[in-house]
């Protein structure tokens, strides 16, 4: 086998393996998607039917029963709103820690991360009471606050590692050219790490979009996002798989489309450190 053939074989095997993993990851979504076009009886049939007459009834039921637009709007507002606020707080925080580290910077970073190690249910009651006393229950503002706090540690960590990879000499050069600290951030740091910020923002949006614990506990009718809508299709007594799949498909669709369009930024951001 020549070197060229070996290389081709290696590429083929890697390609096949990548496809296999991708299909494996995609399968649950595919299954959810096709189940949403089945009747309840087809959805539970064993062995599962792959060929069937598709129906749109489940989507009709979801449209009739749930205020999809309200839930989708709540999801969009809370995930984008909290991400914007979190980025506004996190960019200066990560900047100061990356370029002007103090004696305790590492400890602060670790402490921030440690807040993610506490199970959310552990602070449910105090947060619930705080929300009740401040009139934040079932409000979009309330969810935005909780999502912001929830994602801040991850966002700061990610930005910190992107900023840390920027060559300090560029900043020094900017300073020598007379740039103020604000100008340094806006004109040098931000343009250089745009990929990293975009991918951090996208990750935060996805995490907020998929969040269910706080959404279910802190909202009722007005601010409930799509995750709460999906939960409403689970039934203690009665078949619901097809309708649940339809609700899930409708809930996933916007974020999948959004992710598709932002693929470039996402990949660029995730490989930011690797290609430098």
């Amino acid at each position, binding site marked *: 086998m020549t070197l060229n053939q070996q290389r081709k074989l290696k590429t083929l095997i890697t390609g096949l393996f990548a496809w296999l993993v991708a299909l494996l990851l995609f399968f649950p979504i595919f299954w959810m998607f096709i189940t949403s076009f089945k*009747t*309840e*009886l087809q959805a*539970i*049939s*064993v062995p599962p039917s792959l060929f069937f007459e598709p129906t749109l009834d489940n989507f009709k039921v979801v449209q*009739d*029963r749930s205020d999809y637009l309200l839930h989708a*709007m709540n999801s*969009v*507002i809370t995930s*984008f*709103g909290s*991400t*914007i606020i979190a980025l506004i707080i996190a960019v200066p925080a990560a900047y100061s820690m990356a370029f002007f580290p103090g004696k305790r910077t590492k400890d602060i970073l670790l402490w921030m991360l440690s807040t993610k190690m506490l199970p959310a249910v552990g602070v449910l*009651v105090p947060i*619930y*009471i705080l929300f*009740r006393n401040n009139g934040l*229950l*079932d409000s*979009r503002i309330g969810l935005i606050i909780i999502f912001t706090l929830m994602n801040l540690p991850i966002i700061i960590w990610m930005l910190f590692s992107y900023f840390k990879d920027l060559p300090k000499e560029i900043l020094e050069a900017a300073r020598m050219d007379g740039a103020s600290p604000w100008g340094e951030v806006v004109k040098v740091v*931000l*343009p250089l790490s*745009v990929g990293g*910020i*975009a991918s951090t*923002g996208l990750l935060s949006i996805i995490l907020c979009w998929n969040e269910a614990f706080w959404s*279910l*506990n802190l909202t*009722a*009718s*007005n601010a*409930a996002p799509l995750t*709460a809508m999906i*939960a*409403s*299709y*689970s*039934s*203690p*007594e*009665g*078949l*619901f798989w097809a309708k649940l799949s339809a609700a899930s498909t409708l809930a996933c669709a916007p974020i999948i489309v959004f992710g598709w369009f*932002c693929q*470039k*930024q996402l990949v660029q951001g995730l490989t930011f450190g690797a290609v430098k």
Partner: protein
Amino acid sequence: MKSLSKNTVACAISLATAITTANAFADTQITVATVNNGHMIEMQKLTPEFEKANPGIKVKWVTLEESVLRQNVTQDIANKSGLYDVMTIGMYEAPIWGQRGWLEPIDASGDYDKKDILPSIRSGLSYDGTLYASPFYGESSMVMYRKDLVKAAGMEIHDNDSWDHIRDVAKAVNDPDNGVYGICLRGKAGWGDNMALVTTIANSFGGRWFDENWKPEINSPEWTKAVNFYVDLLGKYGPPGASSNSFNENLALFNEGKCGMWIDATIAASFVTDPSQSKVADQVAFAQSPQEVTKKGANWLWAWALAVPVATKHEEAAQKFVRWATSKDYVKLVAKDAGWAAVPTGTRESTYQNPNFLEAAVFAKAELKAIKSADPQDSTLKPSPYVGVQFASIPEFQAIGTTTGQMISGALAGAMTVEQALNNAQKAAERQMRQAGY
């Protein structure tokens, strides 16, 4: 940078627009928290009728998964946050919450006709003679079986057969090679899942949750015999993986034609006889629950009911809605909209007196008989201090029932012996009761 700023601008605009166009409600808005089931979906669909009859009241629905609903309404009610004006609660919560002063008594004025509500259901939702939740559907448990398979196996099933006979039928019908299992029963852990059924078996075998001094009796000889019987029956003649099956999983198996018998909630009767969701709709027959050494406590009693929490800011509107949604007229409204087979059952005597309903629902008589025969005040052979057939109506029961359910589910899956499971459950229950000051 260009694409980022575009995204950012778009997001900021949508955020600003949405926040400024946020909710503005001119009318009294009541929020109803509920579970997802057929009767509730119908009620949601008919809500415009209520709004038409009561201008100025708007109804908002929050549908949640059962465990999330329990958690949310408990949180809401214990913290008096007033998120919900009407909440769906079960027969377990109604008397406990009524006693604690968390619920407003049901306003039974006008043509509500409290006496028309089935006595066992009414008493289960009351505390000290006051009705704290209005039932919208009630259920008991019974045997649903495939008459074709049972006949082909040369067997018969009657009302209140012995559990031993049920085992014989399960053995005769069991044909796993052809995908038919003798019996399908709940195995998934939970006080409302496997423990609802297991408690009725334990009751039939002469067991009880607590003695007269509130000492748990979960590892008593009666319980041990009952749970051994259940594990053996389901292990030998049940479907594989039975320890993770509850109502929906068994419903799916039965509707697919894979169960010879299924003992579960009477509400299932309307699903298994519905040709649009069951492959065996025309082959289903019903019988009253099996018994063993006593006829007491053989079939459970449960109701989903609407209650008004004291923290509501719109009590009058909430009471109005509850009265409307659980009235005799509402039953007629559902019949007009979706047919008599779809009306909520197990709540009112008048429903079972309606010839149209009796004609449309083949299961009606069996269901009424099961509900009427369940007595939450007297469900065990030896006297017990608690109210409830498949549960004990005390706050500590939820934790005790769930732990016991996990142990028994573990025994069913083969992780431990029945004796070990019951001893563990007994210890946990004793600790729980001691902590609660019993």
